[in-house]
């Protein structure tokens, strides 16, 4: 049922919108093309931002810094009941979507999908976003230079969610 709904949502929404427009006598194709042009322009604006972000993330990933940092914070974090095994995902998650997904795919096979650790990393991956990709791309596309407290608030939210993931999997 859920599977069907998630597969049908995209075609269903497109059908619903185009049909409603057609019934209301909107020149649907003309209007579509007009909107699509704006989409193409927006995508082009995003490219330079994307190159900058992915370059910095790839340098950080390839340098081995994440592993060193994970080794350093493992001990203090274990005092708060955070298992050492999930520390690398905690660190990498806000920075890189592809790196955290790669790590998740590798780790879940080691831990077992239905083990406590397997469920923790699944919950973390399912409930968080790549903050340092989303914010620059969104604000960059809108030509905003000063994002004020956006990053701080997003990281607070993100890490709070990850902590909840770790604790909630003990209970449910």
């Amino acid at each position, binding site marked *: 049922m859920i599977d069907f709904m*998630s597969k049908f*949502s995209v075609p269903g929404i497109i059908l619903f*919108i*185009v049909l*409603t*427009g057609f019934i*209301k006598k*909107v020149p649907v194709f003309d*209007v*579509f093309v007009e*909107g*699509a*042009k704006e*989409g193409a322009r*927006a*995508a082009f604006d*995003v*490219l330079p931002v994307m*190159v900058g972000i*992915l*370059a*910095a*993330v790839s*340098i*950080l990933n*390839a*340098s*081995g*810094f994440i592993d060193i940092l994970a080794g350093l914070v493992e001990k203090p974090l274990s005092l708060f009941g955070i298992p050492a095994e999930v520390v690398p995902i905690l660190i990498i998650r806000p920075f890189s979507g*592809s790196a955290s*997904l790669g790590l*998740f*795919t590798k780790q*879940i096979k080691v831990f077992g*999908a239905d083990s406590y650790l*397997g469920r923790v990393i699944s919950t973390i991956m*399912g*409930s*968080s976003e790549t*903050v*340092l990709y*989303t*914010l*620059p791309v969104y*604000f960059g*596309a809108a030509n*905003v230079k*000063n*994002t*004020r*407290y*956006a990053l701080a*608030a*997003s990281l607070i*939210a*993100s890490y*709070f*969610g990850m902590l*909840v993931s770790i604790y909630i*999997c003990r209970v449910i």
Partner: protein
Amino acid sequence: MLNFIWAVMIFIGVVTGLLLGRVSEISDAVLSSCVDSIELVITMTGAMCLWSGIMRVAEKAGLVNSLARLLKGVFRFLFPGIPKDHPANGAVAVSISADLLGLGSAATPLGIMAMKELSKANGNSPVASNAMVMFGVLNAVCIQLIPSTVLIIRQQAGSINPSSILPNVWIASVSSMLAGIIAAKLMERRA
């Protein structure tokens, strides 16, 4: 802020790489990341054209306005200061609905377009408005109902019941979203 973080990421990365003797890995990675960005943007361009086109149709058909009216109460709290009839209201409503439905390829383009509308409502200023920051934060936390990629990977890893983590995911997402809203609301008074 982003200027600082970007510089720090590059600095830490290159220095650590030098110390650990991983310079050639870094140089490979940074060059292939450029290819990745082009691939990502090209994939996204198609989706952005499709969805901004479809959304223009929805707008002309009056659907976007109905959705915006439906979410009006929540929006007045989250995004104060947007004029009542500004197109940003509709764009934000559409984008958040796409996030909730987990429309994946549609969510990012719609979000970017909504951010552009919010920026117009802010007079295209280089400084983000409170509403823009709140919208950024909501997009930086995950508000998707069904994380399909994670479920597929769980299934491939041999989970007996991949979707058993859904309640946990929802609780964690909602907690994270509330933390983001509270943090943003508290910080907007100071900054």
